């Protein structure tokens, strides 16, 4: 089947994978706690939230767009879901409504971009400010605490010894892969990211796909938000602030290009894991908070340089 395409894709990420392993080996030399099963599960669980958001972000960036509003959508849907739970409606309904809200806000982003031709950066920046404002207005700035135990399972549950968030994230990645690389919709999304005019002239419903992609991004942000508040047992209006940066960084570190039409969720997965491992390593090694950022920046830069180096060699 698409064998040589696969090999190509793998080759492109080869350097990144190497950089990732070098990082893992280095940290495991510095801390014997690092490569233990509980910590690996811990890292996976922590990356699940950024991972879920980053899958949506990957789709958005594949269309040559960007979504700065993910963190705010997460925040707004989280507080509203928490409030719905407090109001006593059935858990599954609250979840459904929360996810639907995320989907709708994302869809509005899509409309602003396709119907009103607002550049994605501006449209989602506006939405980021707006949704955060709504989250604060809605809660009056106060956290909503004490959530239904059966709801919290989404964040705290385990299947066997694997945390539920990890399984959800894995599912999201797998579905993302199926959608982008196996379904015709994915191929259409790559095509429109590659050349929007050509896509339109080929009869691809470009606007519909763009709206869909932002809606999915909103939906996934909402999903990530549920996991997060499930774990925290509380939704704060500030929750999710700055998450857009982590998600975008993961996507771009993973090799998806801002010009659109090039990249994949597997690259994003590596990006997400790299970021999570850095954060985990810094905590395990008890790096002082002053030096934390320096180390983080240097590690990301070195990882990418290694990646490019390997790419050149290939």
């Amino acid at each position, binding site marked *: 089947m698409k064998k040589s395409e696969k090999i190509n894709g793998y080759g492109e990420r080869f350097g990144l994978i190497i950089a990732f392993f070098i990082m893992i080996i280095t940290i495991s030399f510095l*801390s014997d*706690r690092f490569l*233990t099963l*509980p*910590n690996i599960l*811990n890292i996976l*669980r*922590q990356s699940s939230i950024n991972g879920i958001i980053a899958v949506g972000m990957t789709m958005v960036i594949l269309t040559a767009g960007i979504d700065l509003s993910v963190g705010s959508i997460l925040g707004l849907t989280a507080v509203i879901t928490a409030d719905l739970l407090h109001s006593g409606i059935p858990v599954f309904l609250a979840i459904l409504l929360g996810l639907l809200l995320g989907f709708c806000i994302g869809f509005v982003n899509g409309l602003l971009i396709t119907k009103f031709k607002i550049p994605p950066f501006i449209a989602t920046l506006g939405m980021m400010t707006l949704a955060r404002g709504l989250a*604060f207005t809605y809660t*009056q*700035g*106060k*956290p909503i*605490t*004490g959530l239904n135990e059966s709801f919290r399972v989404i964040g*705290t549950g385990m299947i066997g010894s694997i945390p539920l968030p990890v399984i959800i994230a894995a599912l999201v990645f797998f579905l993302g892969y199926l959608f982008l690389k196996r379904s015709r919709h994915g191929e259409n999304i790559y095509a429109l990211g590659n050349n929007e005019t050509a896509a339109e002239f080929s009869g691809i419903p470009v606007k519909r796909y763009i709206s869909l992609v932002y809606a999915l991004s909103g939906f996934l942000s909402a999903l990530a938000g549920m996991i*997060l508040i499930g*774990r*925290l*047992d*509380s939704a*704060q*209006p*500030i*929750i*999710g*602030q700055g998450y857009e940066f982590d998600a975008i960084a993961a996507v771009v570190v993973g090799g998806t290009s801002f010009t659109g039409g090039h990249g994949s969720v597997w690259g994003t997965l590596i990006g997400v894991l790299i970021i999570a491992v850095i*954060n*985990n390593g*810094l*905590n*395990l*090694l*008890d790096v*002082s*908070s*002053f030096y*934390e950022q320096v180390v983080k920046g240097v590690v990301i830069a070195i990882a990418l340089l290694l990646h490019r180096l390997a790419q050149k060699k290939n």
Partner: protein
Amino acid sequence: NKEESDGLTLGLSLSTLNNPFFVTLKEGAEAKAAELGAKLIIVDSQDDPSKEATNIEDLIQKGVDALLINPTDADAIVPSIKKANAAGIPVFTIDRGAAGGDVVSHIASDNVAGGKMAAEYMVELLGGKGNVVELEGIAGTSAARDRGKGFNSVVSGNSGLSVVARQTANFNRAEGLSVFENILQAQSEISAVFAHNDEMILGAVQAAEAAGRTGIIFIGFDAVDDAVNAVKSGKLAATVAQQPAEIGSLGVDAAVKSLSGGSVESSIPVPLALVTK
């Protein structure tokens, strides 16, 4: 004295409204202003000193009768206070002080003392022995600095306690959760945790619960509603109460009193309290 304060407009500049502590402070101030019939204009600096300077300039332009400032930083606020002084607007600082300029009155409780209070209670609970973790606030903010300073002044003088991890979680509950998760992985023996605010300690409590680690003493700071409830239910050992609503209320009270010709103390301490079960 309701009549006297009629028509007074007070400007209240808050360092951030992203933190329930300041939201409660704001509400205390609002309630008092409503009671006294004064008008309150509130601006949010979002922890950014330059936004703060801007906001305060706008309030001065607006011609408020007095300024209640909760500075993002004691140094960075000085030029703004001087501007207000030049415009003849009396200034009151709230919760955090200023390093210069003419301030009529400072209404606050002492962060350093609060840190000490938390540490002393921790020493008492631990019997002077154990591995301690400190979750720090946003690096470079004065709250993080002062609370850490107070806490460490006690802990470092106590040979039985050793701080095994000291990491920032940026005053944020979600980060408190993940950072403490990571620390739990690194440290098999943790006896107590102190966090620079309640948000972080509540995140840490969730992390410990999820990991099934019991017997850890958690102490927070701020006494926000969630934390007080957590103390009641036994999840938190204690939280340092600064009585934010009281601070806000006293601030408005002092400003109105001073504007209507009364005299106010140059420093109005708001007592700290340790909330325990």
